[in-house]
């Protein structure tokens, strides 16, 4: 049974009316099953963060409905906790108090054992008393994860949580999350612009197209768990990766108006395509200011990780 369903979700920033800006999300349908790990992949600026913010309840859709756990989403809830690209720990609180922050909001007496157990789960025991700025970027992101998981949310929303980390730390955290995922019961919607990350982590991957943002490809990832960095070298992984890159290339190019490829749902997996799609991904991975797609009247630019 789907714990989260988006039906015909449309999002337009700013006013509607004659000079309304084009829709960021256009009639998006997504279903997420309980205990599922769904990754959403797409070029920067395609509306991934917007989608996540709608599910989190920070934003209301212009059209369509978002139903979580049988109820329409109308605002944020501790059942749907977000982990952002930056850890956003409170510098005036110790690591322990940061992790306990959500519990403190709800309860007069905090179950400190639960807090300390969660800190141990993310491997930060011994750092409880430290302020967050004494921790490395990777440790801070694990603390942010602990702060979310200690609430025992039904749904964990992650918006490029490792996007601001260096490659090595990022790889360690991916493996850490894979392992953690086997130990906690939570449904995850994980957003990324990194193809490998999307395939490595997810049970299912959704690829979004740019302006307007739609789901261009839905891909089941049957690769058995436990997975690790080795998994990325396996044949099934490479197969899915190739298909993902082809789709990404198609959605970016069609958005840029370079080819007239329509939205016919065809997946052009021509091997020759691969080099060019690789390049287009590289530019967005870089995190520099790049134009990823141009619609007839407006250039859509993607900001780097720091600006999001």
């Amino acid at each position, binding site marked *: 049974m789907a714990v989260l369903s988006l039906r015909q979700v449309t999002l337009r920033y700013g006013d509607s009316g004659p000079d309304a800006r084009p829709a960021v999300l256009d009639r998006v349908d997504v279903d997420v099953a309980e205990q599922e790990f769904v990754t959403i992949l797409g070029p920067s600026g395609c509306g991934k963060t917007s989608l996540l913010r709608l599910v*989190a*309840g*920070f934003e209301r859709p212009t059209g369509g409905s978002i139903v979580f756990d049988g109820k329409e989403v109308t*605002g*944020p*809830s*501790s059942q*749907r*906790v*977000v982990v*952002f690209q*930056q850890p*956003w*720990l*409170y*510098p*005036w609180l110790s690591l322990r108090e940061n992790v306990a*922050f*959500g519990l403190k*909001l*709800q309860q007069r007496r905090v179950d400190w054992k639960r807090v300390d157990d969660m800190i141990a789960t993310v491997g930060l025991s011994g750092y409880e008393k430290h*302020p*967050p*700025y004494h*921790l*490395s*970027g990777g440790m*801070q992101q694990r603390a942010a994860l602990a*702060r*979310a998981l200690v*609430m025992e949310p039904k749904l964990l929303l992650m918006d490029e949580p490792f996007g*601001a*980390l*260096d490659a090595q730390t990022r790889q360690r955290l991916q493996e850490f999350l894979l392992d953690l995922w086997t130990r906690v019961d939570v449904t995850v919607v994980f957003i990324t612009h990194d193809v490998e990350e999307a395939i490595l982590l997810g049970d299912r991957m959704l690829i979004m197209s740019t302006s307007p943002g739609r789901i261009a490809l839905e891909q089941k990832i049957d690769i058995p768990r436990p997975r690790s960095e080795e998994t990325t070298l396996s044949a099934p992984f490479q197969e899915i990766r190739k298909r993902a890159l082809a789709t990404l290339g198609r959605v970016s190019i069609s958005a840029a108006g370079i080819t007239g490829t329509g939205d016919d749902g065809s997946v052009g997996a021509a091997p020759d395509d691969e080099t060019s799609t690789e390049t287009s991904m590289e530019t967005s991975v870089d995190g520099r200011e790049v134009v990823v797609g141009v619609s007839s009247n407006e250039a859509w630019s993607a900001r780097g990780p*720091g600006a999001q």
Partner: protein
Amino acid sequence: MTQARAFVLSEELGEPGRPPSAQGTGSPVPGGRKLSLVERVTHVRLTGRHARWGRRLSTIMVLVGALVIWEILAAAQVFPKVALPTPVAVWDSFKLTATKGYLNKTMGQDVAYSVVRVAAGFVGAVVLGVPIGLLMAESKFVHRVIDPFLQLGRPVPPLAYIPLFVVWFGLGELPKVLLILVGTIPIMIISTIGGVRNIPAQRYEVARCLGAKRRQLFLNVTLPSTLPEVFTGMKVGIGIAWTCLVAAELIAASVGLGWLVEQAATQLQTGIVIAGIIVIGVLGYLMELGIRLLERVLIPWRGHG
């Protein structure tokens, strides 16, 4: 808002709008620091604790150097003796004023009166200004009511209020304390508003998706996040408070450092004038130092994301 920033921003006021620090915040990387005078003179690079003492030593050297030049100028009588007494003569004036007093008031009394006035006015400005700023930042209505007064009042130099306050409140303590309060409160209000407006949206979003309600957001996010800019405001505000005090005492007082300086000047007691000015400088510096210490204790996290 833009006006507010313009008011608060100045070279040495630190980094109100500093972006959240990047990833991998480890220990701060040393280097890129300017060399202290001691280092430049001796060509020895100092680190850590030594660097701090090096900087202190530089300050002391500069002050001693200035004293020596002053002594030479005064001794050589480049200027008439009444205009520029020697440092030793100033020290004697200081001792005399401190022990025997001047015009029936000892230096101690003057200092006590001035310090109490500044403290009362300044604390009043902080205690009133911060909540007013918070209210203005949180409520559009309150902002609309108070902002016109702030905008109109700000260009008026506080000193222009002195005659009015004397007419209204006489020559007692009240008009002086009020003048300091009126002069200092705008910077407190404006820094507080700036502090609230600069809070990154994610600080709120983190709390909201963990279940925080409006009141909890205010207590757990707004208040602590605003503290650094409140302290920035206080560091500017204490200087303004001293300016207002001395001005008030120059014009309408019978005790206090401003009064002392003014009276001594009319009788050409230049030694006392200079001693009074130095005491004002030292006291102002000490108060700012006190605020900095308090800041270090209350918000050691300042500047960290």
